[in-house]
């Protein structure tokens, strides 16, 4: 029954395999109209070099399929310009978040924008943040032209408001941390110069002078660079907790005060170099960790995701529409929403009927018919015809807006987790304090104040928790880097520790364990002649190509994978009956495709020729290839698995049984607000999902993973997301987290031994500042070595 598959043709723009060829005059084939137009723009503007640069990078351009052509007229609205642009000396600049930027060639092309669009002076891209800043001369407000050009090149630009305090704060914070590190490094190296001379035997005036110089250089370290430690320590103490920064701050402050006193008293014992080194190393390791985290995808400003796509608003008292952004809408406005557009507000349909996909809110895979007067919700997808909607709620007042507010405000509602470093710090601080008091009293009683201070200081400095302060952030950042290299993005370090203790794993159904869209799973021809079959296939292809319905798209895709020589035949009297199918005449023969949703998780599509059934297809939201193996592996490691879905019971039960979930662990028809209630009942839970309806559950679970292709809201609320379309990465993430915790435990054990030896030497008076200055970096280096060895690439991969 198989039809031969021809050799694959590659798209001249993106290199994807071509299913339905689009060809230009030069004989180049493209996978879609979008790729063809990008190719033509580049040829016309003499920018063919794009392809040369792209060849040299490992990356390849993404196909620009499904890119909507937008007008961006609202960008030139004066009010809009005021809110969204920066005015610098006669130039206006606006920043856009660009979707689709990924390689060197993109960078090259985007910064060539002044050559493509008149009036654009400057175009600057920040690849890390996917932000492009476009500058124009004032008075020539043509941001819409620039945005349109970017759009036609295959990138999706979203304007970013200039009033983003949050972004500025983040930038300030990062800069100030960098300054603190730089100053600590400067002081550290200079102090070493002088203390080194003292250790080497500088005497008399030099010894005194060098002491004062070191004191002077240590002041910026203690009073500026180390501020983050104090802040975090005070914060922890206020909450009646102890964290790693408490002992760190103690060592730094106590070490500084006593050392200063000793300098004034002209004694040799001072630890300025150790204090500066400690501060520098720990700040540096924290900076590296910060850089490893994915900050661009944080949970701030979630609502803006749904406000980026522009919409059309009816101009008062006229029949015309203007393009606006959803946050400019007001209740009582009338908006027009076309096919495949996202609904920009909550409201009521006042003109037309359509089918709407509610999966953003409910997770339901099938679209639902909406007639006149039906209530529609922001963020859902209009799949059918163009409708006009009377706005009744906008932005934060909408149902999705409320859900998002709940997500943003429920930051600290997660079960309090006892992190290993905090646990250890607690005992550690009490022990060091106790020991220090004993040592101080003992020597005070036996000798004098100065002598007892010397011993106590040596003890405090030597037992400073280097392993915890330095190795833990380094381990986490190494693990994050490793994860990223293998397509797994971990956003925070506590997610790693939480993940290592997971016992219960909850899965969403649609889009997570299943593919999320309908695919042809069975087909049957009612003729055995293979030439007839090809003709039927071609007719089916031609009819369905005209429709935008997701089922039609799947059928077209299926047809072309069977035979890639299908042509669009000429159709006469073509008609699409919404939600029912398509019909039309081909060469005087009447053909009709009727699609019926059985409501049992699959769709039947039948092709009738002159009323006689000729080809029958069955489409269903199929279980992903790797779902079985992933679940099997997880169950093999004694994790309990659950299925939680908002979809219909019959569909969920079928998938659940197919994937061998225990019947009592299958939950169906769960609304988004209730998903979190199920999870709350269990401890050490991991939630794997992909839809906006999973976001609230993400907040309640100890760890959340968003699968590849998740909606952006999900990516932002999750702790971890899969950068590649492989469910097995879930197993890998657990392996990684366990390894991270193992390395941290090894380091802890090692530093415990080190500290016991160091402390006993300090107590008995064998250790002075010179020995401390040598021991500290050695212990740091050893721990660094252990960390790097255990997190090297090969080791971790071998286990997955």
């Amino acid at each position: 029954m198989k039809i031969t598959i021809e050799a694959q043709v590659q798209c001249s723009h993106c290199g994807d395999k071509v299913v339905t060829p689009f060809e230009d005059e030069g004989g180049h084939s493209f996978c879609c109209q979008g790729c063809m137009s990008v190719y033509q723009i580049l040829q016309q503007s003499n920018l063919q070099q794009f392809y040369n640069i792209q060849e040299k990078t490992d990356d390849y351009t993404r196909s620009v399929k499904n890119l909507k052509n937008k007008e961006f007229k609202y960008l030139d609205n004066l009010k809009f310009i005021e809110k969204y642009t920066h005015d610098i000396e006669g130039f206006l600049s606006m920043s856009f978040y660009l979707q689709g930027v990924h390689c060197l060639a993109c960078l090259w092309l985007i910064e060539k924008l002044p050559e493509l669009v008149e009036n654009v002076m400057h175009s600057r891209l920040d690849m890390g943040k996917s932000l492009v800043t476009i500058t124009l001369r004032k008075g020539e407000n043509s941001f819409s032209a620039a945005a349109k050009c970017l759009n036609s090149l295959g990138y999706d630009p979203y304007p970013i408001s200039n009033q983003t305090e949050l972004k500025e704060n983040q930038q300030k914070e990062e800069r100030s941390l960098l300054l603190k590190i730089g100053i600590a490094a400067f002081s550290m190296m200079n102090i070493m110069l002088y203390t080194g001379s003292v250790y080497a035997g500088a005497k008399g005036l030099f010894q005194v002078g060098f002491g004062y110089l070191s004191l002077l250089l240590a002041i910026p370290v203690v009073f500026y660079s180390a501020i983050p430690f104090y802040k975090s320590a005070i914060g922890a103490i206020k909450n009646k907790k102890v964290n790693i920064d408490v002992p760190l701050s103690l060592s730094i402050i106590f070490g500084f005060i006593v050392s200063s006193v000793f300098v004034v008293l002209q004694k040799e014992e001072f630890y300025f170099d150790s204090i500066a080194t400690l501060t520098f190393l720990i700040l540096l390791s924290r900076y590296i960790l910060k850089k490893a985290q994915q900050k661009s995808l944080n949970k701030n400003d979630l609502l803006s995701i749904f406000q980026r796509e522009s919409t059309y608003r009816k101009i008062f008292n006229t029949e015309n529409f203007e393009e606006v952004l959803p946050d400019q809408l007001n209740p009582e406005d009338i908006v027009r929403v076309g096919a495949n557009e996202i609904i920009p507000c909550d409201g009521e349909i006042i003109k037309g009927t359509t089918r709407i996909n509610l999966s953003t809110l409910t997770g339901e895979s099938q679209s639902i018919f909406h007639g006149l007067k039906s209530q529609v919700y922001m963020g859902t997808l209009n799949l059918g015809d163009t409708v006009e909607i009377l706005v009744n709620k906008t932005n934060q007042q909408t149902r999705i807006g409320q859900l998002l507010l709940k997500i943003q405000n429920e930051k600290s509602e997660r079960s309090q987790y006892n992190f290993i470093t905090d646990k250890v710090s607690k005992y550690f601080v009490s022990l060091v304090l106790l020991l220090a008091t004993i040592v101080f009293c003992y020597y005070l009683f036996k000798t004098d104040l100065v002598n007892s201070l010397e011993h106590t200081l040596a003890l405090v400095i030597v037992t400073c928790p280097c392993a915890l302060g330095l190795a833990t952030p380094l381990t986490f950042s190494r693990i994050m880097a490793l994860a990223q290299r293998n397509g797994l993005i971990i956003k925070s370090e506590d997610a790693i520790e939480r993940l290592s203790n997971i016992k219960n794993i909850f899965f969403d159904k649609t889009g997570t364990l299943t593919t999320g869209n309908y695919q042809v799973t069975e087909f049957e021809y009612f003729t055995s002649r293979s030439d007839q079959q090809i003709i039927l296939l071609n007719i089916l292809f031609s009819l369905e190509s005209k429709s935008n319905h997701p089922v039609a798209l799947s059928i077209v895709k299926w047809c072309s994978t069977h035979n890639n020589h299908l042509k669009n035949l000429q159709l006469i009297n073509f008609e699409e009956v919404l939600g029912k199918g398509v019909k039309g005449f081909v060469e005087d023969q009447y053909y009709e495709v009727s699609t019926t949703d059985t409501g049992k998780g699959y769709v039947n599509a039948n092709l009738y020729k002159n009323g006689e059934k000729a080809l029958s297809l069955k489409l269903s939201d199929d279980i992903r290839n790797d779902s079985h193996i992933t679940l099997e592996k997880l169950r093999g490691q004694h994790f309990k698995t659950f299925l939680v879905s908002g979809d219909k019971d019959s569909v969920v039960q079928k998938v659940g049984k197919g994937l061998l979930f225990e019947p009592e662990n299958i939950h169906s028809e769960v609304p988004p607000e209730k998903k979190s209630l199920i999870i709350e009942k269990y401890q050490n839970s991991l939630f794997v999902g992909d839809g906006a309806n999973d976001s609230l559950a993400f907040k309640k679970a100890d760890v959340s993973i968003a699968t590849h292709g998740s909606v952006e809201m999900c990516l932002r609320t999750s702790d971890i997301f899969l950068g590649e379309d492989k469910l097995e990465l879930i197993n890998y993430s657990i392996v990684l987290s366990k390894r991270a915790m193992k390395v941290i435990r090894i380091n802890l054990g090692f530093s415990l031994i080190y500290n016991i030896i160091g402390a006993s030497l300090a107590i008995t008076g064998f250790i002075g500042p010179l020995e401390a200055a040598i021991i500290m970096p050695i212990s740091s280096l050893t721990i660094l070595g252990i960390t790097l060895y255990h997190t090297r690439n090969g080791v971790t991969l071998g286990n997955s």
Partner: protein
Amino acid sequence: MESRLEILNILIPMALFLGSFFVFLFIWATKSGQYDDLDTPSKRMLLEDEVDLKE
């Protein structure tokens, strides 16, 4: 002995002065945003070279 070390009277202030000079340069560079984007400039540099070669 003392006389040979007199050079330190010049060297130490000089070292401190030079050091602080570079610290101020560093502070200026950070505050003017030169360390904000560490990914793109390294790539951009590669590109401009290629364009020049062609021209």
